[in-house]
């Protein structure tokens, strides 16, 4: 009897473990997979198309590409919880990427923006907009703030980039009231023509027929 109970319990625990493991893995897989689809729509966006939805039922579209020390991510317009599951989000109503004023990009601390923890003063962060203009920013400060401190979103006269993610980085439970904020000041803006010449080979997944191939251009 006891044996049967123990075996039922262990089966149940196995099932719970499987489901939870699957859910957790799916969250990280989604963050990675979405970026692949987003790269495709970003290429279309760069080619001049507007509001390219990465998948048919998406309600957001890419607005920028952010290049962080550990790699680049396509940025979606809007920093809603739904968007952030797929990509960093550009906060609506803040300055456009590379534009004058404060441009705010938010991301998850355990996926796209995990690298924020390691950013220090002087690090470079680049933003590419739809026209291909790349703006280079230099990290000037970092801070832990309360989620109500929306003053960090305040307009500034100089072009400024503000990156936001949750804090602490190693917390298990999401939804805490604290945020980690990185400020970066404008260094230089390179128009498309100049960028083309300097651009390092880009690597991306592309679809060939029915299969995906990894291309280095």
């Amino acid at each position, binding site marked *: 009897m006891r044996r049967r109970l123990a075996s039922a319990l262990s089966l149940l625990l*196995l099932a719970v473990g499987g489901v939870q493991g699957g859910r*957790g893995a799916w969250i990280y897989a989604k*963050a990675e997979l979405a970026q692949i689809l987003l790269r495709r729509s970003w290429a279309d966006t760069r080619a001049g198309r507007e509001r390219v939805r990465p998948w048919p039922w998406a309600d957001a579209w890419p607005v920028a590409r952010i290049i962080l020390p550990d790699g680049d991510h396509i940025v979606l317009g809007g920093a809603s919880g739904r968007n952030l599951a797929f990509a960093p989000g550009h906060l609506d109503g803040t300055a456009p990427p590379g534009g004058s004023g404060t441009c705010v990009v938010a991301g998850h*601390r355990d996926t796209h923006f995990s690298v924020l923890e390691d950013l220090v003063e002087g690090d470079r962060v680049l933003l590419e907009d739809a026209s291909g203009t790349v703006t280079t920013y230099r990290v000037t400060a970092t801070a832990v703030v*309360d989620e109500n401190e*929306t003053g960090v979103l305040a307009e500034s006269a100089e072009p400024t980039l503000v990156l936001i993610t949750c804090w602490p980085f190693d917390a298990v*439970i*999401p939804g805490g009231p604290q945020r980690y904020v990185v400020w970066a000041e404008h260094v230089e803006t390179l128009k498309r023509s100049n960028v083309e010449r300097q651009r390092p080979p880009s690597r991306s997944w592309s679809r060939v027929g029915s299969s995906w191939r990894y291309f280095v251009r």
Partner: protein
Amino acid sequence: MASRFFSGLVTVALLAVAVVAFPQQGEETIGLGEVGRGSLLAATETPGRYIAVPLQSTEVEITVKGLVVEAVVEQTFENRSNEWLEGVYVFPLPQGAAVHAMKLVVGNRVIEGQVQEREAARKVYQQAKTEGKKASLVEQERPNIFTTSVANIGPGEAIAVRIAYQEILEYDSGRFLLRFPMVVGPRYIPGKPVETESEGMGWAFDTDKVPDASRITPPVLHPDNGKINPVKLTVSLDAGMPLERLICPSHPAQISADEGGLRRIRLEGAFADRDFVLEWVPARGREPRAAVFTEELDGVYYVLAMVMPPADEFVETVRLPRETVFVIDTSGSMGGASILQARQALLLALEQLRPEDFFNIIEFDSNFTELWPESRPAMPAAVAEAKMWVERLDANGGTEMMGPLLAALSDRFEHTPLRQVIFITDGCVGNEDALFGAINAELGRSRLFTIGIGSAPNSHFMERAATFGRGSFTHIGTPSEVSLRMGELFAKLENPVLADIELVWPDPDADTWPNRVPDLYSGEPVVVTARLGTLHGDLEASGVRAHQAWRTGVKLSVGKDSAGINRLWARRKIAALMDDRARGVAETEVREKVLEVALEHHLVSKYTSLVAVDVTPTRPEDAELKSGAVPTNLPAGWQHDKVFGHLPKGATPGRVHLLTALLALALAVALRGLRTVV
């Protein structure tokens, strides 16, 4: 990091609440261990460092006699820190308030303030401030937003500033209305920040569209930290007639009646987070038909006259088809109770439409959306579609008002004899003047009616927008008022009841304000002020009412003698002169004329301030003075998140899922191990 930012809400000591505020540059800060108990602290850019701010409390005494309101507002600034402080408090007053006196009260001494040109007054104040003298300065930022600055409040000291104003009581649809605003709702500031250092201490930067934004956006205390700025208020009401009803819809005020028909209204234990509203209705048949108040000053007479056209019932009106464009504010400040009231009001208004009417709806926040590209006939299907659309409206985002306003006023086709724009908003924007200019320029044959929503709307915007729009202003403060107020508005929307109003005074050189009386809607009286050489004779008012001439006379010599009518006259003249700016008159020209009136009648205006200085210096030369902006509450019913937002969330539940998975698997493995052992 050059940009200043909000830096946190921390609770300190017993009473202490830390508030968001911007420190002056170069200000010295203190740590938490260094402050006295019960200090009000404002956070600075440096985490863990704070500046002290004086505690503010207000005591208001209002006296109502007939149509004239006289009020004394005493603001006490208490310094519980160990520092010498300057307090800066941004607060509202009624939009028609003629602020004529200020007293600085230091212990037993009372120093009378003087009206001076704004820059001169500021210089006097600054000098006293640096010399260590106690001083106070009252400046006008908007007709309904003022700033009190008090310098050199010593450690443990309390200094009071007593401000006196007068205004004309509002009488509309058979109801008298006394409104005393207590909090400046956070205003939306459009435009790009300017490069120069912002002048004020507010949470907004000065922008190209609102160059004084930092002066009209006092720091806002997060509601989680409780309420501050307690208010005590008493009203002595001499209505001059028997009353049917007297209520205070905004607060649980105590109402008691003295002998002789005098009533006393007392409010204690309130905090400055909403407008105080008192309403009374005369007993049936005792409604005033006309009222005259006069004052003689230096050989000239000042008159305040109210004439009520006869009630509607006997007039037959033909309802004309109309095009109605509804504009509804769905910005973040409308979040919570306000958006519910706004939707409710709009749904009621949609039901009033008839099939021969045309209509459209525009909703706006940071952007605006029109229900349809152009107005449609109000057939049942269209009205049903509109209702569904309205039900889904939610409040979020900024308040970019110019776009939707211009869209609503653009009269693209002449469907109908009447064209009405109904604007539902709390008016919480900082660029009022630009909007007035646009209304004035683009109005055409449209008429603009404003509906003010919420516990602390910007009444200055509501009233002036309706004046420029040649419509009327309705205010809805609570959900229970919606149907009543909307009913009054529907009556007004039918037609102006009195047009082409002309006034003839016994003195042909009478200086009358407003100098042209606008068309009146149902329930509205003619209220006019004048300066003239004689009171012998009648004021003759005439107009056109339902295509018939209407005429009435009021004997001026029987008017009640009342002090301060000159101020009411001067205040109205200043309001009219200020309106000229929206009509294209150069500001320099307006300024000159306003200065003359304001200085002669001792009034605060955009160009004149009240300043008082105590002669003896009290702050030791080696003690430093610190400045703090006194924070305000969020208006009642508002949602902090909707206005100031919060930073986006930045974590997934991925780790929780993986961790529980690991735990479950480990337990399962452990159980299996247990089983083999057993």
